[in-house]
């Protein structure tokens, strides 16, 4: 049977993924500060809404109004973004701090009663702080992923990395639990910062192995597969 895929809709990324993310996969978007994790997760939802899907973005830190304003100013070409939010085709909400039960209640509610098929949680770095030990975090995250594996929902989970340096990358608990890992960079090149993307892992499918440059345009993220970063 052919592998069912969900197109991210992000220019150049689906080609790197050989057609999109396998359906029901849980993908970690990891990167240093300011690399575009939240933005990429939102673009994944935005294109889902354009396809007629219902999508949900659960923030563990930022207020929904602030997220909406940031996204609207980053991508002025997304004329229908606020309309999608108003019509609840993109639901943006905030979970209660340190209350894992409430987070899971909301996810379950979105999937069972709102028909959400694309979900983003921002961020796992904060989620980690809900638990007193790494083991408990790993166990709960695994249980959550296992629970979500049985439902028709593809998830992006963001994770903060302490550095953008490729050689200094540390692997957190969530990277072992996720089906896929996409890393975003803000690399130094000739006294300038250059955005770049790399697919580190994607279970069940082949994918591009090279680092690719990436930029933010008014209409969304653009990934330039096959082009050199350095």
């Amino acid at each position, binding site marked *: 049977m052919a592998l069912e895929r969900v197109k991210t809709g992000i220019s150049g990324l689906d080609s790197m993924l050989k057609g999109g993310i396998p359906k029901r996969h849980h993908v970690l978007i990891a990167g240093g500060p300011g690399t575009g994790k939240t933005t990429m997760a939102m673009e994944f939802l935005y294109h889902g809404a354009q396809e007629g899907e219902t999508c949900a973005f659960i923030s563990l830190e930022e207020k929904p109004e602030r997220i909406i304003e940031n996204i609207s100013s980053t991508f002025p070409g997304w004329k229908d973004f606020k309309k999608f939010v108003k019509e609840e085709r993109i639901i943006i*909400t905030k*979970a209660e701090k340190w209350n894992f039960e409430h987070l899971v*209640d909301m996810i*379950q509610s979105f999937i069972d*009663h709102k028909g959400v098929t694309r979900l983003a949680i921002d961020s796992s770095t904060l989620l980690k702080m809900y638990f007193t030990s790494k083991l408990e975090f790993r166990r709960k995250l695994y*249980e959550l992923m296992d629970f979500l594996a049985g439902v028709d929902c593809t998830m992006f989970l963001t994770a903060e990395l302490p550095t953008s340096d490729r050689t200094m990358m540390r692997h957190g608990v969530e990277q072992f639990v996720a089906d896929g890992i996409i890393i975003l960079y803000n690399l130094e090149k000739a006294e300038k910062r250059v955005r770049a993307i790399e697919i580190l892992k994607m279970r069940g499918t082949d994918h591009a192995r090279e680092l690719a440059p990436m930029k933010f345009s008014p209409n969304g993220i653009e990934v330039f597969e096959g082009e050199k970063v350095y």
Partner: protein
Amino acid sequence: MIAMASKKNRKVDAVFLTLYKRASRRMFGDFQSERLAVAVGEALGRELAMGSSANQIVQDIVECINASGLGSMRAEKPPKGVERYDPISNFYVKDSIEAQESEKADKPVCQILRGIIRGALAQVYHQENIAVKETKCAALGEKECVFEAYWVPM
């Protein structure tokens, strides 16, 4: 189903619920069986909220739980000064059959009741930023189970 049970004055069967929850734990593990119970509760709560209103929903939840046999419930606003965020209501349940069926608990166990309360409130207010916490549970030796329902600040 509970809304229907309430209308027809039929009770949820304690023996059936006990066996069902135990079997679900055995088959799916703690986390999945808890989620299943919350999902059942939430679906029931949402059904119960159809035709209710924000003014009436707390009373409707109490009446339905009492008619269903899941426990003996009363609701009241938390006393001033101890509320968590912006409270909706506290729900107090004596003789919860979920708590009674629990063999050895190390955390609150009344997921169906919690799901019903949250589902009914989320449905009637059309909001997801409602949290329901079981802060006391008879399965942990308390006199009664206590559920706090409140708005999560956005």
